[in-house]
């Protein structure tokens, strides 16, 4: 039996904040954007947006590209695919656990039935 993977932990930490999810959504709709233009459509400051973008960049969910004086952000699709793959691994772990529960329960039922 295994605990959660470090990689999955990081992705959850990155995706666990509703504002970061909202930022990803906006970036997916716009393709590319700066912290300032994102902040213009959000109830938080440019600095707040920049902090969230930094977390998303660190965990591989967005890329930052310097263009003149501004930094333009975009969703890193491989990062999202990894998040999907992490979910598939969680499903696989549950299958392993359910199979273990099945074995334990069927053994216990047999023992109780005396056969």
């Amino acid at each position, binding site marked *: 039996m295994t605990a*959660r993977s470090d990689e999955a932990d990081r992705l959850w930490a990155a995706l666990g904040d509703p504002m970061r*999810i909202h930022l990803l959504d906006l970036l997916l709709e716009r393709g590319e954007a700066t912290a300032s233009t994102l902040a213009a459509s959000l109830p938080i400051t440019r600095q707040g947006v920049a902090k969230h973008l930094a977390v998303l960049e660190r965990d591989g969910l967005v890329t930052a590209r310097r263009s003149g004086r501004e930094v333009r952000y975009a969703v890193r699709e491989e990062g999202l695919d990894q998040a999907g793959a992490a979910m598939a691994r969680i499903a696989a772990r549950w299958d392993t656990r359910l*199979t273990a529960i*099945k074995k334990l329960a069927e053994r216990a039922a047999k023992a109780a039935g005396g056969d």
Partner: protein
Amino acid sequence: MVPDAIEREIVIDAPPSVVWGIVTEAQHVAGWFSDEAEVDLRPGGRMLLTWRGHGTYEGRVETVDPPRVFAFRWQTRQGEFSETNSTLVVMTLEAQHAGTRLRVVESGFGTLPWSDATRARYADENAKGWLSELDELRDYVGRAVAASRER
């Protein structure tokens, strides 16, 4: 597409009363889930789940409705437990013939507020890969269960 919930189920040749004990008692939780477990089996009760080499993750019992529903939260990362750093696991036991259909839903991965546009776009692009992975898993489990039946 990043789904917010994982849902899996299995059919067990044992009545719900037996499956309930396996699912909720610490000695058994330490068999199918973690390496060591403490479970205070009442709503709000603390769970401590330890994996050798990974350390201890804290959980909290949410629902105890024997022998039908057992729900708990467990941390996505170590540290202080909270609802924002844990996922919710709901295990539902349903009597079926002489056995039990056990369903598990783990949710709360923090990915709910995707817009419909995003969801549709990503569903198109990624659903195929995602679904084929699940199909592979289903086949794998089918074989594993068949193999355990033959023993």
